[in-house]
């Protein structure tokens, strides 16, 4: 019996010919990403020995630039760590700032067949590059960075074969909401994405799916490699890499078909991402106080361009705060050069610098009591973006933008025909 992509890379990284679901494997780690939440003074442990600083990437992203003194103390610790070990891949406030998962994509830090860990839960995002990546705990990051290895229990894999082309105004966020709504959580299971639809899907579109797979509680999320992916990486770094495909006789827990052409815009209702999706029409007319496009799931140039397409020449409803946060300063610059930032600003959108921002509920768009928000970010959990009485609907950037213009949850097909 053959292996899935995840099993193949875990076998390679653990020095075995084969691994199977249920195995506990110790694997070598290629890349360890430290994000700013690692350096919070009550969490940080000073590292006395770091033999391979070249393995490490440091990104200040969750609250950047810092809004308060605790944040300042946190980022200061990060800079001291970077200086102590001469870490070159450091993404401080400035030109190379961004959310770690977007920074990893912008710089192609995640090579196919490699293993990457980070203490942010959405690290599976890098699976779009045929890289085995996942969020681990803060203590795991200390362990992996200093000892160069970590452990995983091999889970079963569910494969999704994507076919067809997304209709106008429908995005991979809607594809995700379809999967999350229909199939619920994927706890202890890896997900593998492939299929004929890849020919029509950009890296950014695919990345929404790998990033959001965290919300399925999937262990690893990974895409089949293809030319689009290889070209993305080659354009950004010269290193050789090896792509991993599933064996023809790989054993899956399930193989599921998703016809992208049959999808419609969806929203997740508040408090749970899984088992909570409905057509936008079901929630249409719900008054909103805030709209947000951003995060590691939907802060790419394509997401900003789609948002601009919806709001161009219009004005955000007076009762709505519409916040757009690019996922990296590289995205911000590209959006600026394309005229997207001015289109957004002219419509009354507040465009912020790159950071996790409102997604985490700690700065730049915190929700007040009983407010309602529609977001394209990663989570709609109770209290996630501010007060626990606030309600958070989740949809695509197009749905968020259409809702911001109307002041009520709105089907984006009313704007994008």
């Amino acid at each position: 019996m053959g292996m899935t992509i995840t099993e193949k890379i875990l076998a390679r990284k653990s020095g075995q010919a084969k691994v199977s679901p249920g195995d506990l494997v110790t694997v070598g780690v290629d890349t360890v990403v430290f994000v700013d939440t690692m350096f919070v003074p009550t969490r940080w442990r000073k590292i006395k020995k770091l033999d391979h600083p070249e393995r490490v990437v440091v990104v200040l992203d969750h609250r950047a630039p810092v809004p308060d003194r605790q944040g300042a103390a946190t980022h200061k610790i990060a800079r001291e760590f970077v200086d102590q070990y001469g870490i070159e891949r450091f993404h401080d406030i400035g030109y190379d700032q961004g959310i770690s998962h977007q920074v990893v994509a912008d710089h192609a830090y995640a090579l196919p067949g490699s293993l990457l860990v980070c203490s942010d839960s959405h690290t599976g995002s890098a699976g779009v590059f045929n890289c085995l990546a996942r969020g681990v705990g803060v203590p795991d990051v200390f362990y992996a960075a200093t000892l160069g290895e970590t452990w995983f229990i091999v889970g079963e894999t569910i494969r999704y074969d994507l076919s067809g082309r997304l209709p106008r105004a429908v995005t991979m966020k809607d594809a995700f909401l379809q999967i999350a709504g229909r199939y619920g959580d994927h706890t202890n299971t890896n997900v593998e994405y492939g299929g004929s639809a890849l020919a029509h899907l950009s890296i950014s579109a695919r990345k929404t799916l790998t990033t959001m797979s965290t919300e399925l509680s999937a262990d690893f999320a990974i895409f089949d490699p293809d030319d689009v992916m290889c070209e993305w990486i080659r354009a950004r770094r010269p290193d050789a890499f090896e792509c991993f495909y599933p064996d023809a006789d790989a054993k899956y827990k399930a193989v599921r078909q998703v016809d992208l052409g049959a999808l419609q815009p969806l929203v997740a209702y508040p408090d749970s991402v899984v088992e909570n999706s409905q057509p936008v029409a079901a929630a249409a007319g719900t008054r909103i106080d805030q709209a947000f496009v951003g995060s590691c799931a939907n802060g790419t140039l394509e997401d900003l361009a789609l948002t601009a397409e919806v709001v161009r020449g219009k004005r955000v409803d007076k009762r709505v705060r519409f916040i757009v946060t690019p996922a990296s300063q590289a995205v911000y610059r590209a959006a600026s050069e394309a005229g997207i930032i001015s289109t957004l600003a002219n419509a009354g959108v507040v465009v912020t610098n790159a950071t996790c921002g409102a997604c985490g509920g700690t700065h730049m768009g915190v929700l007040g009591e009983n407010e309602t928000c529609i977001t394209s970010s990663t989570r709609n959990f109770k209290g996630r973006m501010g007060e626990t009485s606030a309600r958070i609907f989740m949809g695509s950037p197009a749905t968020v933008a259409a809702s911001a213009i109307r002041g009520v949850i709105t089907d984006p097909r009313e704007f994008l025909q």
Partner: protein
Amino acid sequence: MSMILEARVWKFPDNINTDLIIPSGSIYLSAAEQAKLAFKANRPGWVDDMRPGDIIVAGKNFGMGSSRPAARSLKMLGVGCVIAESINGLFFRNSINYAFPAMECPGVMALFNEGDVAQVNFHDGAVRNLTAGKSITAKALPAKLLDLLQAGGIYPLLEQKGIIEPQT
């Protein structure tokens, strides 16, 4: 650390996420202060009602979401262990990391009513309802992970190796 636990049960539903255990905006609080906020949004007052040693029995997908150290908060409150229908992989890692016992046990929600007394054996996976006189078997932890958990998790290990400084 004894790995046979006996205490009363509190029941929690499916899909308990880590934002419910450690709310957004509490990242700079001490571990003890953070722990006091557990389940404030979905079960206010519970942290005062529970007693050290009590056991959480939960539905599927327990601990979904962020990597924040939710297991550390439950340990800090004195929760004996979590036994759930299924457990998010990242929460499970942190339970090992912070030496907080947690085990998956399909069928556990039906085995207990809230307030029943449970006996949980992490060595062989036996989960008993002492009140009702019924038992089932959980998915016992791999020996290597149980050893790591019993040794206090990752931090003591890294401290002994001289790799990180003890917390000041």
